[in-house]
């Protein structure tokens, strides 16, 4: 392995690890606005990773994805989520389905699980981004966990977006990005999903006087 690829590979790894760390920070954060900020930070790391991979491999179309990540996930979606939070009367999430220390412990376990699952398929990967695939799966699982552990509609949305970030890291790591048309479609879907969730939180707030999804118990078996 040449020295420059080694350096590049280490840089990509560093960025992916920062992504994972920001996941843990989201899990440990009670304040809703801080969760959104951390998501924006995570998306920024994601864009950096993508840009790094694009630079090191010369795949130009990954730049497009990086720019779109900055626009949609660092600027637009966090702004929508912040607006939603402003309208709400709560800024902290006091009660959770799983408390923070236990949650962090579970997330640690999820990382191990992710590495275990991806072990047989890692050797197929490109040298540059080999370890990122396991990290991507870990981020997806932690995002899923966040959606289960939290009760507020906003944090559930953040959990979904974190999952999406994980998948995106996976694409960049595993295959240097998907075909452009697919990537554009995915971004469009994520954006629309964010908008729709924003509208929902308004309506839920009006109807239930709360965005606590544990209040959503009208429909029971």
């Amino acid at each position: 392995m040449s020295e420059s690829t080694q350096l590049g590979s280490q840089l990509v790894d560093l960025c992916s690890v920062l992504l994972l760390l920001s996941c843990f920070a989201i899990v440990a954060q009670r304040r809703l606005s801080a969760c959104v900020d951390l998501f924006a930070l995570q998306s920024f790391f994601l864009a950096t990773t993508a840009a790094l991979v694009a630079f090191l491999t010369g795949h130009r179309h990954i730049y497009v994805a990086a720019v779109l990540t900055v626009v949609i996930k660092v600027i637009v979606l966090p702004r929508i989520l912040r607006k939603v939070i402003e309208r709400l009367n709560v800024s902290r999430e006091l009660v959770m389905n799983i408390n923070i220390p236990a949650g962090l412990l579970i997330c640690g376990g999820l990382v191990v699980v992710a590495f275990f699952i991806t072990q047989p398929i890692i050797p197929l990967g490109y040298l540059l981004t080999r370890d990122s695939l396991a990290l991507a799966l870990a981020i997806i699982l932690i995002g899923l966990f966040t959606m289960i552990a939290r009760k507020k509609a906003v944090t559930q949305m953040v959990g979904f977006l974190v999952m999406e970030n994980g998948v995106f890291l996976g694409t960049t790591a595993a295959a240097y990005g998907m075909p452009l048309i697919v990537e554009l479609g995915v971004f469009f879907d994520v954006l629309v999903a964010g908008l729709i969730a924003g509208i929902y939180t308004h309506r839920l707030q009006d109807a239930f006087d709360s965005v606590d999804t544990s209040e959503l118990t009208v429909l029971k078996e």
Partner: protein
Amino acid sequence: MWPVIVLLVGPVLAGLSSLVIQRARLLHAVNFTTMVALAVAETLLTRQVLADGSVTTLGTLVYVDALSDFILIIITAIGLSCSLYMWSYMDEQVARGVIAPKHLGIFFFLFHMFLFAMVAATMANSLGVQWVAVEGTTLATTFLIAFFRRKESLEAGWKYLILCSVGIALALFGVVLTYYSSVRVLGDASSALNVTELIGVADRLDPNVLKLAFLFILVGYGTKVGLVPMHTWLPDAYTEAPAPVAAMLAGVLETVAVYTVLRSKALVDQALPPQFTGNLLLTFGFVSFVVASLFILLQHNYKRLFAYSSIEHMGLAMLGFGVGGLVGTFGGLFHLLNHALAKALAFFVAGNIHRRYDSLEIDQVRGLARSQPITAVATLVAGFALIGLPPFSPFVSELLVVSALSAQNFASDTMHVGRFVAVTVSDEMRSLGLVGVFLFFGVVLFGGMMARIGAMVWGTPQDGITRGEACTVGHVPVLAMIVALVGLSVMIPESLRTLVTRAVHVIVVR
């Protein structure tokens, strides 16, 4: 090429024009005309597929083979009948003040976007584009489910959005993994997700990656199919959605979701022994069937009853695909069509009952036979068809699935549901045990459904319920469905049989 363009552009144009049109009558006219155009285009496309085997067009963006064409037939047929049904349903809801007249345009806009997303998902050549379209169906339908804006419908819509988005995010990871394995073989990055390319090289893809990919795809799209245990959004969504939307969700969206799973199955089966996907589908199918038939016993709301019956029927179709082989797969595919017809009929009926009785509780509905004679007959037909009685077509497809199941030889070194049933006995006993359990729960289902449907149809209507039923446009699709259900049980048209047989050969690759 033209039929494909009509199928894709038609719903988009109709949807956009619905946003600007104000008059209700014009909205319905646009909606109906579009659906007729789609049906005609689909007929032409089917003819082309039957003649040429498959159609690849618009660059390589669109790929329609016998399998996707069969799904398109279901989409357009149910869509057309829905558009007729909505004519009377939506007008009455507006007249009663349930829906504000200005919201009617938005309803049709979302409805057509939903339709567009489903058509795109079925015709997409690239598995990635297919994913985008399937997520599009979630986004388009969530507000359709919450359209009545009551507390319950908002809750159902939110639950649907969140659960299906999570599922679909997992499916995307599955698609990424497929790409991961294919791009190494194909090299060309832009077409490495295209079904047309993948078919040729699927046996050279890395089996370990494909195993993981199929798991993610099955769990992900399985959420949309409503397989147990990812089904929890489904009964709520079907109950809260307006009747024509529920008919589309149950009849068509589930079918499209099954189709996406089948596409992956066809690929994975080339690289791995078919037992791998088969056993997964068998397990999910069996669990869904059993759990749903038990839950049917607990229902006191007729829309929820039909919703659980959807889970049960999807489980049944999955059993067919899981057993595989020509008979099982044919049964599974044919069952998708029959279920779509029967379930659309069931939800049309549910919409009629709801408008008359103003209640979704089975206890509150008495004497349908006297208050709404046509609906009562249709309710009985839907009920009989859904529990698989002759002379209705689900009987035929269920019989095919069960016979495939009983003839199944389990390879003894693999994991399968048979183990839960009989651990040490021989293969024949094992499959007999499986069929036995299956039939037992079939009987449970029969009792549960019949008791409830009988309770609604017979008896005397409560005071204050108007008696007599005037024929409206909305009755046309109801009658058409009944005719189709009976007709398909007697004979399958030759062209349809050819199409389904070819679709079977798309799925069963060896």
